[in-house]
């Protein structure tokens, strides 16, 4: 197939990606959008295989078959609760693939040109840097999410200096590499090593609840890495698709940052764990047992569930849905208030509740539920903490002051399902627990909800 035909087919693929992404923006069309986008990918792959550039299929067949098998198995077998880990690993594999493409480009993948040009050297360097950071950063994010390593922020003295030195060293290496591009030099391997190390160092100071930001940022990087690889091999489709993904990731990152009222620099460079609490909240917590909670719920006409990461940990989404259905059958209006950063990745709670068969039109965003909160009889907080902390609204000394929250304290009654009185990820005391209309239902979220369900039966 001639280069002209191949490039025309790439245009078709790019258009399919664009429409696919657009359709992913609405629940009604999202699934067909994803299918359209995968069709575009298939076209791009097939015409590439038919192009004159490919003369040897042996290794391609082996590698593609192995990759398809791993990808298909992983996507089928992963539990919905483990989705953040899965997304992190896929981001990482995209990153390392772009790194390898750029690396291979150094070895006369475009033969005929004498040596490596400065332009190629610069773009290869960028691909290696972004791809390497995406790869190792995603692995660290995975390890934190899977709790293979501590999920909190790992901070130490001089961290910023070390990271700045790493970045500086990397840029210096890039300049030297552009002047003296050689594929098999110590300089090249130094760049490779520094990029991978930078990814690790960049993600370890970021703790659990900030993960939605990191995951969407790494998502953006995986696109930018493909884009840089596209420059390295002069390929339009890589540049277009990669930058679309890069832009999408940046937008999501921005939404996540806004939801926490923090700037991206603040999330990336200051571990939340290091913040000391200023205001100490004092007061009595009022525990409640399932029997009494049942009586209140039984009489309620509007109930809002507010899930957080604790619901994912307890795998409580199915029993929550069951309780919701029982309440509805009881003539109660049930909704689910989802804070944008509840959980460990953007949209985490939405996916879990969808898995439990909660219709997505029952899910409301915090801005929509807050004005209606005074009319809600019971707000049930399940394993959420910082996203319902009134200190973010009222206490300007609080480290999370200014973060938009779900105003559950404005509801007539609040049930907080919690294991114990430990503070949330941010290490901030939560005045909600001491509110006059708050009742604490201690214990495992799944067990507590199940107890409520059996009261109804």
């Amino acid at each position, binding site marked *: 197939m001639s280069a002209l035909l191949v490039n025309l087919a790439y245009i078709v693929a790019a258009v399919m*990606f664009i429409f696919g*992404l657009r359709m992913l*923006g*609405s629940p009604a069309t*999202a699934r067909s*959008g*994803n299918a359209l986008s995968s069709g575009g990918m298939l076209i*791009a792959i097939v015409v*590439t295989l038919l192009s004159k550039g*490919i*003369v*040897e*299929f042996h*290794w391609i067949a082996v*590698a*593609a078959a*192995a*990759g*398809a098998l791993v*990808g298909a198995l992983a*996507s089928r077998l992963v539990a919905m609760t483990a989705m953040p880990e*899965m997304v992190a690993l*896929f981001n990482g594999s995209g990153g*390392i*693939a772009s790194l*390898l*493409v750029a690396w*291979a*480009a150094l*070895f*006369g*993948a475009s033969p005929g040109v004498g040596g490596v040009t400065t*332009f190629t050297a610069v773009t290869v360097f960028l691909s290696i840097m972004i791809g390497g950071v995406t790869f190792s950063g995603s692995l660290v994010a995975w390890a934190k999410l899977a709790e293979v390593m501590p999920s909190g922020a790992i901070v130490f003295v001089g961290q910023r200096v070390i990271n700045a030195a790493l970045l500086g060293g990397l840029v210096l290496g890039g300049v030297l590499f552009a002047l003296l591009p050689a594929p098999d030099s110590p300089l090249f391997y130094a760049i490779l090593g520094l990029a991978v190390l930078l990814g690790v160092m960049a993600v370890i100071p970021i703790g659990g609840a900030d993960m939605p930001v990191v995951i969407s940022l790494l*998502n953006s990087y*995986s696109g930018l890495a*493909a*884009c840089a690889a596209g*420059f*390295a*091999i002069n*390929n*339009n489709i*890589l*540049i277009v*698709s*990669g*930058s679309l993904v*890069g*832009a999408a*990731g940046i*937008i*999501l990152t921005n*939404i996540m940052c806004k939801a926490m009222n923090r700037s991206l620099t603040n999330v990336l460079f200051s571990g939340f764990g290091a913040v000391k609490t200023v205001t100490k909240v004092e007061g009595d917590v009022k525990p409640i047992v399932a029997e009494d909670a049942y009586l209140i719920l039984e009489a309620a006409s509007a109930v809002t569930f507010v899930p957080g990461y604790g619901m994912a940990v307890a795998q409580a989404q199915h029993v929550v849905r069951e309780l919701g259905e029982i309440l509805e059958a009881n003539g109660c209006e049930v909704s689910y208030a989802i804070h944008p950063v509840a959980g460990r990745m953007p949209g985490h709670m*939405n*996916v879990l509740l*969808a898995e439990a*068969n909660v*219709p*997505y039109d029952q*899910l409301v965003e915090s801005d929509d539920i807050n004005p209606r909160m005074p009319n809600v009889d019971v707000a049930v907080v399940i394993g959420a903490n910082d996203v319902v902390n009134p200190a973010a609204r009222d206490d300007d000394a609080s480290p999370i002051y200014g973060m938009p929250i779900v105003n559950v304290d404005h509801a007539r009654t609040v049930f907080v399902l919690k294991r114990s009185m430990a503070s949330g990820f941010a290490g901030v005391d939560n005045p909600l627990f001491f509110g006059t209309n708050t009742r604490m239902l201690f214990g495992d979220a799944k067990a507590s909800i199940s107890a409520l369900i059996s009261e109804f039966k």
Partner: protein
Amino acid sequence: MELIPVYLAFILILAIFLGFELISKVPATLHTPLMSGANAISGITIVGALLAAGAGGPSGLATLLGSAAVFFATVNVVGGYLVTDRMLGLFKKKTDDAP
């Protein structure tokens, strides 16, 4: 020849603006599928990987690197699209009668 980088940069800038326009308003419900669907698209690097692995050049290392890239990119593409489809299959509207 010197103009090629400029053309490529031109494409890059336009695509970035297009990306921002496309995704500026996505409901929170779709944040995860959008992310994993976009991630699958970033697997487009498979095109570069195929070209590197199949070039049949003199360097065995280039073929090796290319093949490894094909493996990882395929994991990304196949896994990314399938897992996105699986997630989207879970999203239901209340009025839907589908099981």
